């Protein structure tokens, strides 16, 4: 974008933020515990409201004098918050290892451990979500855990897009007023709900005022007049927002940020997402531009200050969870572009300023998404590709042509479908009216196949984990194997549904969320908490893990064992049990002599789509505890690694414990040998209705691809074809030198990685050593 730049203020704040150490914090846990102790006789929703109010009024706050947007849930930045209502047993077990665990480390103040064990842990024993659920249904959840990972067992539900428009229009004062009005005529059952809303909004208003006071206080010591003025301006914004809705762009951005800070303080959950923020904020921006209150440059600076804030909240998971969701993703997803409710192409100045902010900052948050459709303008598309070429992996792209019709098929009204957004990574949602439970559970289809091949025995431990519906030793035909596989899916799906219901019940009982409910339609109208089904839409999403490996394994068994009879079934079973020890030739054949998913080979791709369809269709026959539908997604964050650790050697030639395919729709590493267009074609065979909860396609490109405008143009054309193919999602990693070095070391995982050699493109792993070195040497961002 011409004529705008990153200011020194932003650079300073960014460096400051990144240099701060990351600590685990028990401060809010102490406040919450104290509040519960003092209100033991109150109903749970009031207890929750009082605990949040106390946190908002008592938690230590801080701000940088340079900040244009203020507010955080701890005084330090990027702190991991201990949250006893949802779960503290894991914290007790893992507190000492937080600084040293392999993934998502946090520093710890040793005295905190002691305080935690003396004052927090004893109170919550048997009372937290984690403990209650464990007591009620832990055994059953554990029994299916090899195949089904049930989520939200020790933390509140996130993955929600609050109604930012209502929030901006009403603010905490307006919502409090609304709840008070409701109280004059509500039923007895609704009373606690509305009272809890009044309480939390009071807390929020006080929280905002505290930031006003803090900034005023800081400004008093300030000699620099410009700085002083900026701080007073920020202070005034906070005070105004505590009493009135936002009017200016600066106020609106501050208001949005407060919304997300408070949502985090109430729930400490992953992925509350602003959604289509370019639409939400445009009227404030345009008005300010018209009134000459701000320039485009001013707006960009405010946006970048908000972008930094999105990086100041991280999410501390237990060590197991951190493996599945590595890098403490917090999932502030912002969508730009797309269409308006009439189907017209939509983008505005803010869409471009958001991309510009991402280009400048290159930070992990917010998770920036661009909605594409057939009518997306070249200006937005090209700009987005230029940002991709910078290598941060953002923005990612979503496809209106796939998403809108598929979520409508699920029962979403057209106007809501047209206005869809993304929560967290790639989970699809309507805005402001949906409790999507998009992360309900992950179903490991490959482990279910393992059970079908072994007669229900785990290849890794030899334990019985599933019923015996037959094994490779008993099936005469491939169809018999498929029948048994189907039975295994049914068996685990039924148990999964029961477990999901228990989790939901526990959330209703223990974690009602009045602040969140106030920003989700139609909870305020109906006087029902969001956890209890107050939202307009009540979905539950289950992830199918991973169809790519499943297709490859089934294709290999079908061709090598049953069609060509090159491998006897007993021999295959033996090889799987021994992790191919002494059977390297067999493994190599399974890997190389059978085509793989991702190469546009119809019969292989069909092996995956058939079972994904089966799973989806059967799942859709169930209703969740709130009365809404279950639906499917195809994504993992980093779960393909632990999910793979849990699966023994597989007929696709994969060794025991190796990761499964990454992404969700992506082919297995190194098995896509026909290039990116073949990958897209294979993926497009997965019907869009399979991914109403979100799909994830990861692709890698070398930076040289984006070296000039012709490369940018070709890439834009590639994305237009992605739209035509009705694939829901795609994201790009630009291959770095480190990737190439890794490819040199582990060629098998990178066999599909191509580089331009001489007259055409060659596979990197097949090049001679010195040439690999040469390519490594020339691969850098300096070229872009």
């Amino acid at each position: 974008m011409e004529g705008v730049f990153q200011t020194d203020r932003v650079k300073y704040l960014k460096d400051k933020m990144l240099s701060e150490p990351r600590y685990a914090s028990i401060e809010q846990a102490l406040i919450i515990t104290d509040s519960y102790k003092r209100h033991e006789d109150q109903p749970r929703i009031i207890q929750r409201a009082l605990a949040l109010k106390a946190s908002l009024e008592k938690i230590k706050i801080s701000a940088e004098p340079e900040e244009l947007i203020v507010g955080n849930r701890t005084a330090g930045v990027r702190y991991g918050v201990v949250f006893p209502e949802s779960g503290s047993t894991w914290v007790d077990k893992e507190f000492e290892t937080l600084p040293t665990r392999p993934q998502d480390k946090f520093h710890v103040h040793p005295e905190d451990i002691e305080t935690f064990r003396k004052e927090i842990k004893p109170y919550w024993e048997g009372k937290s979500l984690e403990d209650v659920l464990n007591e009620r249904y832990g055994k059953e959840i554990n029994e299916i855990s090899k195949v089904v990972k049930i989520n939200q067992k020790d933390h509140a539900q996130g993955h929600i897009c609050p109604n930012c428009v209502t929030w901006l229009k009403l603010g905490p004062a307006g919502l409090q007023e609304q709840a008070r009005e409701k109280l004059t005529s509500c039923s007895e059952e609704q009373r606690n709900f509305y009272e809890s809303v009044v309480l939390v909004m009071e807390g929020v208003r006080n929280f905002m005022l505290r930031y006003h006071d803090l900034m005023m206080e800081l400004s008093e010591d300030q000699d620099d007049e410009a700085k002083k003025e900026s701080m007073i301006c920020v202070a005034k914004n906070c005070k105004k927002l505590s009493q009135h809705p936002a009017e200016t762009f600066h106020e609106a951005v501050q208001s949005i940020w407060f919304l997300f800070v408070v949502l985090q303080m109430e729930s400490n959950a992953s992925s509350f997402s602003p959604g289509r923020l370019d639409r939400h904020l445009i009227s404030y921006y345009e008005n300010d531009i018209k009134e000459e209150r701000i320039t485009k440059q001013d707006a960009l600076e405010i946006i970048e200050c908000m972008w930094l804030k999105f990086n100041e909240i991280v999410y501390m998971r237990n060590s197991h969870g951190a493996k599945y969701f590595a890098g403490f993703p917090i999932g502030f997803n912002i969508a730009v572009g797309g269409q308006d409710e009439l189907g017209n192409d939509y983008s505005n100045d803010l869409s471009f300023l958001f991309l510009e902010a991402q280009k400048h900052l290159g930070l992990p948050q917010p998770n920036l998404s661009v909605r594409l459709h057939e009518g997306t303008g070249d200006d937005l598309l090209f700009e987005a590709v230029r940002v991709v070429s910078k290598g941060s992996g953002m923005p990612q792209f979503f496809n209106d042509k796939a998403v809108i019709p598929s979520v409508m098929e699920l029962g979403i009204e057209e106007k809501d479908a047209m206005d869809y957004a993304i929560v967290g990574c790639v989970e699809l949602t309507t805005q402001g009216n949906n409790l999507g439970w998009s992360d309900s559970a992950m179903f490991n289809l490959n482990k279910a196949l393992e059970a079908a091949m072994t007669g229900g025995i785990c290849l890794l431990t030899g334990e019985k984990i599933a019923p015996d519906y037959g094994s490779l030793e008993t099936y005469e035909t491939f169809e018999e194997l498929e029948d048994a596989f189907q039975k295994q899916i049914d068996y685990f799906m039924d148990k999964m549904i029961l477990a999901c219901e228990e989790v939901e019940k526990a959330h209703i009982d223990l974690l009602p969320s009045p602040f969140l409910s106030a920003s989700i339609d139609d909870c305020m109208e109906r006087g029902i908490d969001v956890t209890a089904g107050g939202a307009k839409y009540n979905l539950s999403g289950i992830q199918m893990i991973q169809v790519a490996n499943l297709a490859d394994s089934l294709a290999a068994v079908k061709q090598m064992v049953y069609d060509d009879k090159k491998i006897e079934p007993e021999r295959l079973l033996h090889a799987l049990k021994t992790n191919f020890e002494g059977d390297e030739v067999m493994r190599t054949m399974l890997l190389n002599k059978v085509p793989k998913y991702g190469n546009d080979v119809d019969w292989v791709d069909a092996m995956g789509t058939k079972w994904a369809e089966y799973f989806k269709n059967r799942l859709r026959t169930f209703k969740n505890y709130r009365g809404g539908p279950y639906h499917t997604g195809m994504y993992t964050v980093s779960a393909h690694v632990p999910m793979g650790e849990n699966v023994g050697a597989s007929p696709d030639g994969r060794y025991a414990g190796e990761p499964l395919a990454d992404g969700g729709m992506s082919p297995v590493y190194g098995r896509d040998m026909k290039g990116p267009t073949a990958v897209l074609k294979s993926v497009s065979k997965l019907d869009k209705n399979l991914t109403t909860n979100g799909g994830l396609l990861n692709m890698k490109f070398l930076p040289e691809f984006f070296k000039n405008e012709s490369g940018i143009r070709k890439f834009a054309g590639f994305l237009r074809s992605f739209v035509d193919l009705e694939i829901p999602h795609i994201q790009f990693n630009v291959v770095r030198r480190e990737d190439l070095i890794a490819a040199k070391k582990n060629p098998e995982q990178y066999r599909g990685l191509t580089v331009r050699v001489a007259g055409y493109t060659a596979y990197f792993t097949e090049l001679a050593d010195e040439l690999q070195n040469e390519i490594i040497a020339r691969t850098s961002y300096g070229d872009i």
Partner: protein
Amino acid sequence: MKGTIFDIRRFSTHDGDGIRTTVFFKGCPLSCVWCQNPEGISLRRRPLYFENRCIHCKMCAAKSVNGGMKCRGDTMLMNIDASEDWEYLAELCPSGAIAMDSREYSVKEVMEEIRKDMVFYRHGGGVTLSGGEPLLQWEFALEILEQCKKEGIHTAIETSLYAEQEVLGKLLPYLDLIFADFKIMDGERHIKYVGVPNPKIKENIRYLLESEKKDQVIIRTPMIPGLTAYRDNLTKIAGYISRIYPDVSYEILNYNPLAEAKYHLIGKEFCFAENPEMYSKSQMREFESWARQGGVSNTIMEI
């Protein structure tokens, strides 16, 4: 009709506009000492051995009847001149370390492969015929081009133009973009380094640049250190083509040191004992200035 093809590469992005599928025709009448696709020169099908892929199971050596595959310690040796059923050995090889360098395709089979990426051609891509020299199997090339045009697919060719003008005339109506090499102006040096005389090439360039498709032609010279990349060569080539058509597009291709890799693969000797490096941006700009002195104004370079 069948053609010998050594690769059909989807998602080619360097051989014309947009996302393309490039069909590599085997066989070339030229024998440039620096050839970037040396495996494409001979028309004969032959096996290749990819050492990186080999798991040393030695099954090939056990089944080899005339010593085509042997093992010496842990090293496998391929003798391509031995009489073997190479297709069988390639099929047998579990890792794909033994593979044929090319295969026979019918027009129908090539078209099936091409059609797979139709959805990508819509946004500015198409098909490129390359090689080898596609004009060596011109009848096969012609059928593919005709079929592509029938189906509305954009077509391009990369050719040395070492062919009869009549053949070129037959293909021209079906071509949307022509990349034609003009490597060396000096006749004797052309014979020495390219292996054939150049008058036929020069005449075909004239023919193209006087045709109504002259704006769809790009003349290219690869910069090979000491062999093509010198002032006299560039100014004279530029002079020749710009006198025929002053607005001619002329592309200067940087030297690509990575070609050497393929010589290892097929056991051939590369023209440089010490592989030179790519030219820098400023060197490329100097080449461009020489071409401009020769009379070309419309130059193309990827730097």
